[in-house]
């Protein structure tokens, strides 16, 4: 382990874990003075091609209150003093060590054989209030998806518009559907009654022994194995018509999204609780009636904006949010997840519906139209398979976190809900979703990442012996896409260090990238419930305190301020974070903000960093492609820039390049190199596009192009119309903004950090 960097990377690759601090301050008091909390980013299902699942079940610590999984590392056994080997391990010998005891298996995956395996379930909830071509494209996508599903997966179809139709898939001849009014909220019980899912009392009593088999039977009418009703469903989808109810001039179509979702949830709740299931909502506009309506059907009243929300002028928002939260919580309780695919030019109510995806680990995809490759490919990518030929999705996971006694769990931020499991290792101070040591993650994929926050509870006066290590174990039970139940166990141990004597150690073990993302998650989490400026102030104060704590400076002398390498990038991350759409709502609709925040809360560290601080590559004749500063000074006339903000891929041609292209040089044989230059960023962009989920918006623009705003809004405005000191030089493009530049930001930061006033 040469450097911390390598160590961190290795840990991430092996366990999917990045800690903000890799050496832990040994007392509660000191830990709080570190400003950045002890926390980690955990990617529970990090792909580990090298990790074969073991075919037996884990051994549990026999102490009822502990239940930690038996894992490697003799040291660990010390950490869990009560640990006792169960009898199964009687045959342990030097040559026949169970995997748990081998050091490289700090993460291990068990397959559980017990229990009935139920097939995956995909329930399509389709909006029919779409334009004809949009609907057509959506229908095709859905039909296509049937071929991608596992053959034994169950599928169901609910369509909605003014009414909600639950299609019965099993019947011959007449096609049947159950129709619900789009304006009426129904309880799960009512829905099940109306769908005839509650079994009549009589047969049930008579056929008690047969019951288990009957269970799936009740729902077969609505959920059928793909291989059986493939054709039927394809036809059914093909015959889907636009919502037939007339929409008069000046009105929005009546769209019963709230009820449709409610029915979908109720249907699965009644038939397949605790079985992996995806509810996939495809919607082309805002819910306009019934519970969960976001906007009325009068076109003259626009859908709520941030401005309205601030003015408390969004009359449907609270009620709708409540409706969707209730649904999300029920869904989560059943272990199902909800995906939202919203494609419309205007907002579709993601703000209100976000919790459905956020709390259940579902996807949220936002596009302009179903007839775009953005949607089509994103949708298709959901069904991609991994190296084992398995779908990259898992269901109904519970994450159980155990800590050694010096630590307590403060909370988690990510696509999860609390299971409200109190225990000795649960802190009273909550960060994110706290008060529990277990969370439910209903839908997750190999990149789903949670931020988990801890609290050091060891008292200052009870020092930890030299060389002591803290341990954390993450136990994730989940349903693999192959329908097996699996358990992945990751055990982490880190050294304790005394701040007084070993501050340098701790500093050096600071993971500023992880810290930035973890702090950003905290900030975004707060932003959901607090006013934007408050969050920014909080972030600033944390940053200043961090600088005060770890900077080297002379009091009142800003110029003397220095940060060590392990902290040097952190302020810059914070600068960009402050400008990011996660915290800034200006220029974003509430839906967009929700969309960005949704993804920020579930992506892994790398992607999160890209979101915070987009990556900018430069292509020019001056050398090979290189990353350049995200700064207006990087925008030069003879460069092609490729920016990746995670959500957008922007290719920007400098002024000169654009002129050349316009002149058609790329078509002339003698300028083939120019052609290659033009092509290079396209190829790179393609590569990113292929790998990214959801598919980013792909923007190809040039100097002066309207879409160049995507680039200009992201770069550090080092040159603006206010400070054209470099006018006339080839130093980049001025940005017309009043935003502060990084330089100004840093100046202020230094000044404040060295000030003794605060």
């Amino acid at each position, binding site marked *: 382990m040469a450097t911390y960097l390598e160590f961190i990377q290795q840990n991430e690759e092996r366990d999917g874990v990045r800690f903000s601090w890799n050496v832990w301050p040994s007392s509660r008091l000191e830990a709080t003075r570190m400003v950045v909390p002890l926390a980690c980013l955990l990617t529970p299902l990090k792909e580990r091609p090298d990790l074969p699942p073991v075919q037996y079940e884990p051994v549990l610590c026999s102490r009822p209150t502990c239940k930690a999984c038996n894992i490697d590392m003799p040291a660990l056994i010390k950490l869990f003093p009560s640990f006792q080997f169960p009898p199964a391990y009687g045959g342990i010998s030097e040559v026949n060590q169970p995997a748990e005891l081998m050091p490289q298996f700090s993460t291990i995956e068990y397959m559980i054989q017990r229990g009935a395996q139920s097939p995956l379930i995909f329930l399509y909830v389709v909006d029919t209030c779409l334009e004809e071509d949009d609907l057509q494209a959506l229908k095709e996508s859905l039909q296509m998806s049937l071929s991608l599903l596992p053959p034994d997966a169950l599928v169901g179809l609910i369509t909605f518009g003014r009414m909600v139709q639950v299609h019965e898939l099993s019947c011959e*001849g007449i096609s049947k559907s*159950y*129709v619900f009014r789009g304006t*009426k909220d129904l309880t799960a019980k009512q829905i099940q009654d109306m769908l*005839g899912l509650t079994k009549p009392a009589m047969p049930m009593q008579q056929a008690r022994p047969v019951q288990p088999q009957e269970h799936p039977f009740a729902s077969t009418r609505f959920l059928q194995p793909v291989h059986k009703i493939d054709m039927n469903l394809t036809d059914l989808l093909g015959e889907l018509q636009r919502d037939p109810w007339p929409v008069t001039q000046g009105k929005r179509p009546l769209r019963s999204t709230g009820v449709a979702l409610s029915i979908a949830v109720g249907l699965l709740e009644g038939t397949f609780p605790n079985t992996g299931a995806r509810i996939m909502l495809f919607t082309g506009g805002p819910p306009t009636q019934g519970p969960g309506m976001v906007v009325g059907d009068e076109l003259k009243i626009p859908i709520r904006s941030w401005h309205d929300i601030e003015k408390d002028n969004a009359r449907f928002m609270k009620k709708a949010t409540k409706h969707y939260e209730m649904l999300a919580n029920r869904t989560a309780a059943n272990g199902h997840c909800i995906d939202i695919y919203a494609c419309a030019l205007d907002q579709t109510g993601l703000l209100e519906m976000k919790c459905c995806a956020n709390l259940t680990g579902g996807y949220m995809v936002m596009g302009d139209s179903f007839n775009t490759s953005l949607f089509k490919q994103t949708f298709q990518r959901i069904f991609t398979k991994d190296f084992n030929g398995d779908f990259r999705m898992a269901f109904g996971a519970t994450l159980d976190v155990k800590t050694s006694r010096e630590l307590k769990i403060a909370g988690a931020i990510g696509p999860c809900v609390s299971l409200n499991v109190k225990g000795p290792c649960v802190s009273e101070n909550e960060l994110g979703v706290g008060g529990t040591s277990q969370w439910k993650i209903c839908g997750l994929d190999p990149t789903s990442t949670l931020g988990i926050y801890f609290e050091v509870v060891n008292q200052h006066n009870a020092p930890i012996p030299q060389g002591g290590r803290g341990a954390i174990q993450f136990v994730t039970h989940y349903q693999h896409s192959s329908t097996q139940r699996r358990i992945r166990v990751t055990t982490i141990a880190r050294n304790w260090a005394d701040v007084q004597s070993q501050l340098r150690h701790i500093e050096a073990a600071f993971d500023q990238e992880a810290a930035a993302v973890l702090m950003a998650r905290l900030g975004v989490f707060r932003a959901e419930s607090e006013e934007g400026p408050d969050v920014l102030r909080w972030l600033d104060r944390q940053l200043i305190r961090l600088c005060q704590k770890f900077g080297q400076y002379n009091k009142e002398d800003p110029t003397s301020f220095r940060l060590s390498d392990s902290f040097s990038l952190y302020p810059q991350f914070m600068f960009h974070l402050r400008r990011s759409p996660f915290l800034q709502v200006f220029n974003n609709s509430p839906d967009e903000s929700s969309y960005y925040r949704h993804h920020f809360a579930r992506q892994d560290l790398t992607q999160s960093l890209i979101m915070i601080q987009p990556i900018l590559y430069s292509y020019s004749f001056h050398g090979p492609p290189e990353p350049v500063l995200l700064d207006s000074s990087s925008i030069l006339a003879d460069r092609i820039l490729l920016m990746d903000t995670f959500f957008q891929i922007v290719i920007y041609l400098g002024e000169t390049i654009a002129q050349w292209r316009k002149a058609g040089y790329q078509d002339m044989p003698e300028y083939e190199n120019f052609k290659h230059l033009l092509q290079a960023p396209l190829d790179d962009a393609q590569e990113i596009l292929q790998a990214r989920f959801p598919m980013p918006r792909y923007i190809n623009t040039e100097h002066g192009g309207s879409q160049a705003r995507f680039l200009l809004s992201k770069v550090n405005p080092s040159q603006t119309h206010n400070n054209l000191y470099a006018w006339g030089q080839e130093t980049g493009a001025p940005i017309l903004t009043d935003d502060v530049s990084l330089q100004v930001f840093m100046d202020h930061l230094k000044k404040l950090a060295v000030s003794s006033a605060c």
Partner: protein
Amino acid sequence: MNVNQSVPPVPSFGQPQPVYPGYHQSSYGGQSGSTAPTIPYGAYNGPVPGYQQTPPQGMSRAPPSSGAPPASTAQAPCGQAAYGQFGQGDIQNGPSSTVQMQRLPGSQPFGSPLAPVGNQPAVLQPYGPPPTSAQVTAQLSGMQISGAVAPAPPSSGLGYGPPTSLASASGSFPNSGLYGSYPQGQASPLSQAQGHPGIQTPQRSAPSQASGFTPPASGGPRLPSMTGPLLPGQSFGGPSVSQPNHVSSPPPQALPPGTQMTGPLGPLPPMHSPQQPGYQPQQNGSFGPARGPQPNYGSPYPAAPTFGSQSGPQPLPPKRLDPDAIPSPIQVIEDDRNNRGTEPFVTGVRGQVPPLVTTNFLVKDQGNASPRYIRCTSYNIPCTSDMAKQAQVPLAAVIKPLASLPPEEASPYVVDHGESGPLRCNRCKAYMCPFMQFIEGGRRFQCCFCSCINDVPPQYFQHLDHTGKRVDAYDRPELSLGSYEFLATVDYCKNNKFPSPPAFIFMIDVSYNAIRTGLVRLLCEELKSLLDFLPREGGAEESAIRVGFVTYNKVLHFYNVKSSLAQPQMMVVSDVADMFVPLLDGFLVNVNESRAVITSLLDQIPEMFADTRETETVFVPVIQAGMEALKAAECAGKLFLFHTSLPIAEAPGKLKNRDDRKLINTDKEKTLFQPQTGAYQTLAKECVAQGCCVDLFLFPNQYVDVATLSVVPQLTGGSVYKYACFQVENDQERFLSDLRRDVQKVVGFDAVMRVRTSTGIRAVDFFGAFYMSNTTDVELAGLDGDKTVTVEFKHDDRLNEESGALLQCALLYTSCAGQRRLRIHNLALNCCTQLADLYRNCETDTLINYMAKFAYRGVLNSPVKAVRDTLITQCAQILACYRKNCASPSSAGQLILPECMKLLPVYLNCVLKSDVLQPGAEITTDDRAYVRQLVTSMDVAETNVFFYPRLLPLTKSPIESTTEPPAVRASEERLSNGDMYLLENGLNLFLWVGASVQQGVVQSLFSVSSFSQITSGLSVLPVLDNPLSKKVRGLIDSLRAQRSRYMKLIVVKQEDKLEMLFKHFLVEDKSLSGGASYVDFLCHMHKEIRQLLS
């Protein structure tokens, strides 16, 4: 009643007669008769024979009566004669007079028993004239009522108990059997007069008192024979002839004899006799028909004296009233048929009383609406409310705005007044009609209703001729006809949009019961072809009506049958608590365009639910769904709901079984007629607002709570059909026939009806199948040609004799092609300052229609007993008022009935003992509710036959005769065990087979060798190729064709247990449920009247 009293009769007889005379006198003038009486008798006797002759006489009237006539004439003179005639007029008078004449004689006969007989016939004649006076005065003296009663008891007893028939028969009432005999009654008099005398006397003598009765008594003797014969309708035959007063006389005579014969029997009970006399008179007055009675009456009348005499006689007979001597509906009907069925009824003259509903006649519209559209209880309205109050005669009109007309009569012309819409009075908004007065050279017109002066729009201007009439009056239907239609402009449309064509939605119960009985399969099969016969307008090639389908049990299944689909699509709505329509496009479709899909659907429905085990159903949500569908499609329409069971599934309008027979005769009985929950009314209101009419076909196996389920059909102008214990084999024909008719009949949708009247009277109350949200507008989601609205008027000011009273009924509706129209009916009535004019121009059938509806509505809110009492009291008041103010003075013991109302007691008794007001043990709560709502929208013809069923003998008339055999009175005594009878009341049809019917007859009709092999309860006659079979089946078909609902045939064998059911319809007899026999009731009525008078 009245009849009564014959007790005194005997003594009275002599006197009574006089009394009669008095009455008669007035009417009959007959008093002369009094003297005559004796003579009459002779005459009578003569008459009897003569009667038959009489018919001819009728013609000549005078002639027949001639002998008597004189007297009668004398009598005739009396206004009465005129009265009776009124409408009919002169003719009648003429005859009547004759009749009277006869009566006189009769009266005499009365004196002598025979006399009555004579009377009757005479009466007939008298009818015409006397009618008015009619009266029947039975002498109360006899009256048995009171004292009489006491005495009567016996008599009554006789009547009833003993009599039962014959013996008692003579007992008269008893002979309700005789009833049929009304005529008899009358006849009896006659007969009495005739042969009776002898007999009567005896009896009477016995009765002593009932001299009047005696006549009956005499009848009594005859009884035996009578009974037999009578029934046969001999009397009828006769009577029929006699028919209307006018003609009647003659016929009566003929018949009377026969009748009388019976009558004689009747006479037995003095009571009767008295009554009879009384009745007779009435009959005479009113109907000539009942010839028997009339005759009697006549006799009495003529003989007013006679009556008197009768009364006298009555006294004698006090014991019994001769059924043949009391007014006979059969006779009255026959007389009217003969008198008025031949010439068209021309509506030009104000205040004419139209022929009876039982008479076939043509109508020529010359400015007043045809009686097919409007019938009034009286065509002469008292000028003041005081008079009206005094008379207690309800002023009501029974309006059937969309009545279908015989092919010979043209349907109303459609008038288009262009964009400005129909021309109306600016103030009262009445529509232009023939009564509007054009003034100032045609530049203005004065509204005939409110007297407002309006400008004539330039485009409508026309010059007036020298009489003040517009020159173009005869070119414009609205200026020359009583009924016509206007094309409505957009202002008359909902939301100011012309309506779309209406839609029919078929909503089929597919629960276990419906599937099991085969109903669903049968219905689906039938619909496939039936859909080709949706109503269409005029010469349209295809119907504009769209159709939709829904099936349901405890959830609803809607079907998308859009023509572009290969297969129908089913959409299930299980949210029954909050019903809605899941689809718009494809639900309501054009039959021809979507035929393939619809056929496929109808093929699949029975299969889809073949294995259903769902037994629960919903109801309210189903209608709601249909209504919402129409709302979504923005059109009016009709729902055809096929439902099997009490809706107990959890949903709005869920019902519980609350059938509790213990409530009968308690104050809570009314709850059986009230809906269980308010949900149904609320729903109905919504339906009406949408123009959604609901027709309900019920197929219950047990209690379904018709009272509640029928609320919506009732308030939306729909119909309810009920097929208890439906089985495809047995009920298929009836159901399909009803369904076909119901689907094919022409309907108006989304209608509003308003009745405007000239100043002085005002429409205050409405009865029928409709909804009213205010006090003036009758809202009908749907209205077909069978539905009737009865409107009651009250005075709010004085009327003027000169200008009369005008009614204008305007119906705004959407035709089945979606055209918005206004149908206007105008009717002008006379006004009177003399009560006698009122009584002379009444229509008893219409009166009964009104009273039945009034009572049937009353049971919703009051105990049934109270309702019955109200009816009796009102009836007594009406008659007492007549007696007091219009009849000539006579002994208090005489029952005197106005000629036009002489059937009021018998009909009223039928209403009182109907299932709703006096349920028998076998009548279910559902049946009562069903009947109650049926009657609410019946027209006059339907109520007439419903309350007094037609009983037709089958083998008496020559087999070659193609006309319907003459009916006999609905009494067991009229049944001959050697004959077969058809009985129909518009809902039921029985074929009664006497135990000693000839074997050959049995063979040729049932194809079995003996009576015992006939299957009791058989519902289909074998198709056999012999004249009798053909004739009977033809007759059955023709009876069915006359009724709006298919009557299922039930073959009843004499002495079989099914006979109980059959006997229930013999309404002149005492009923098992406690309903009084005609004779008893008449006595009772007489008593009431006497009490009122004293």
